[in-house]
């Protein structure tokens, strides 16, 4: 067991040393793998960020309830009280007609035009936020139906359509990321496989000699498998660097945009888990590409 482990570590280090002897071609291979991995990784991080940004839009599900124009403030208060007692409602905020007018005057720039009106044209309104467990579109639709029946309520406005549209688009994008990942993973397999194939061809004599003195296919293959792991790991590292650089470059402008929208949103990088997945995934792909290529090719090399 000890000898076995010792031998594996030796081969692992030995194959790294061998790659070191031809730094240019090794670097080239690693860069190609890295770029291939960086693209889906960047897309993934972007989608993750969009998701977490849109996760803060719980208020998008708020239901606006407008009282009838004739309804008094007391009526509105009673309605709010009744709605608040419902189990599928988290909170109810009463927006008095006067407050609403004041806000509209400040926000819209139509202040002077409003002054020309004799009466306040706005009704009292309630902003109803569904409880956490009742935010699927079906439950929300049901709730708004019930709200419509409450005394004094005129219009119930529910604007979730764009949220579901947005989520649907996000799902498509996520699927595209997955497909891209699969495609680029395949590309990495081919790159590693082809590189290993050339490595094997260059060391044909050595392989023949090793087989002559009793080396099995598994023994001969081992250094090439480790080569593949190094290529993949190096590629993963390059991809990680690319993602980090891209995220750093985008961080500031995105924060500025978020600031303009009054959000404190910040771009998230790969994180520990994502980084580990990228590196390990790269190594695993390298191992697999090398395994496929070397198993096929080494069988054909026999001493003459």
């Amino acid at each position, binding site marked *: 067991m*000890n*000898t*076995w482990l*010792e*031998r594996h570590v*030796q081969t692992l280090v030995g194959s790294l040393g061998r790659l070191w002897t031809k730094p240019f071609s090794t670097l080239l291979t690693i860069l190609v793998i890295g770029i291939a991995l960086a693209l889906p990784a960047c897309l993934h991080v972007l989608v993750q960020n969009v998701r977490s940004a849109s996760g803060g839009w719980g208020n998008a599900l708020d239901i606006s309830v407008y009282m009838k124009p004739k309804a008094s403030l007391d009526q509105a208060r009673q309605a709010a009280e009744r709605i608040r007692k419902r189990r599928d409602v988290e909170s109810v905020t009463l927006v008095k007609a006067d407050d609403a007018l004041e806000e509209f005057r400040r926000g819209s720039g139509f202040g002077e035009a409003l002054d020309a009106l004799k009466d306040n044209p706005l009704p009292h309104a309630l902003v109803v936020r569904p409880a956490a467990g009742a935010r699927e579109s079906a439950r929300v639709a049901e709730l708004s139906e019930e709200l419509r029946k409450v005394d004094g309520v005129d219009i119930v406005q529910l604007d979730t359509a764009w949220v579901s549209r947005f989520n649907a688009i996000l799902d498509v994008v996520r699927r595209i990321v997955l497909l891209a990942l699969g495609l680029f993973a395949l590309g990495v397999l081919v790159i590693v496989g082809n590189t290993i194939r050339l490595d094997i061809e260059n060391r044909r*004599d*050595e392989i*023949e*000699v*090793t*087989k*002559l*003195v*009793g*080396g*099995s*296919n598994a*023994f001969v293959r081992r250094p090439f498998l480790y080569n593949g792991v190094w290529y993949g790991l190096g590629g993963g590292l390059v991809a990680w660097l690319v993602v980090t650089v891209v995220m750093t470059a985008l961080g500031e402008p995105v924060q500025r945009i978020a600031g303009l929208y009054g959000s404190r949103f910040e771009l998230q990088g790969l994180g520990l888990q994502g980084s580990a997945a990228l590196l390990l995934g790269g190594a695993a792909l390298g191992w697999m590409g090398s395994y496929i290529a070397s198993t096929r090719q080494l069988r054909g090399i*026999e*001493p*003459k």
Partner: protein
Amino acid sequence: MIRFDHVWKRYPNGREALCDLSLEIDRGEMAFLTGHSGAGKSTLLKLIALIERPTRGTLVVNGQNTGTLPRSKIPAFRRQVGVVFQDHKLLMDRPVYDNVGLPLVIAGVPEKDIGKRVRAALDQVGLLGRERNRPLELSTGEQQRVGIARAIIGKPSLLIADEPTGNLDPDLSLEVMNLFKRFNEVGVTVLIASHDLHLIEQFGVRRVVLEGGRATGGDVEPMPEVISIVAERT
């Protein structure tokens, strides 16, 4: 140790290298294999090292039938047979140490034992202290001896050599042959292909002569090489 029983070997290109060869080499025996070039000496050795398989007939080496041994068992089989090649077949980009130690690395011997055994093997062939050299820094004779050290380091019970003195001057040749004789004296079965009759005569061991060419009537095409075995003990 080695038993050829009506063995034929025909290569894919149609060349018939061995025809109906029967031959037995006993355990612990030392024998020379002679004959003109093209007589089938190399083919015979390749069959023993399982680099080639017989086309017909059976060849049993060390109790194993080389015709039916599965591919997966070939590496283990080769580890029991030490082979010395005319062209040494060394790894030119690795030091002598790595070359000689390779069979032990394959066999999974611990690193600390490998060092000891490599030095012991190099000592036996008179190359102690050269383990850090690369093969190209050595003379042909020295390279040949590195090849011999590699062949014997795994303590094989059978040692075969294809023209081990082919590129050596007479003094060196004698030295190398004496080396083989010493291994034989400690119980290793040794079979050496050589066409250096003058050298062979100096050793009182069995000679196996392969001869090509046998006339058969009526055939217009070039005859296949036919080998008859003349085994003589001197």
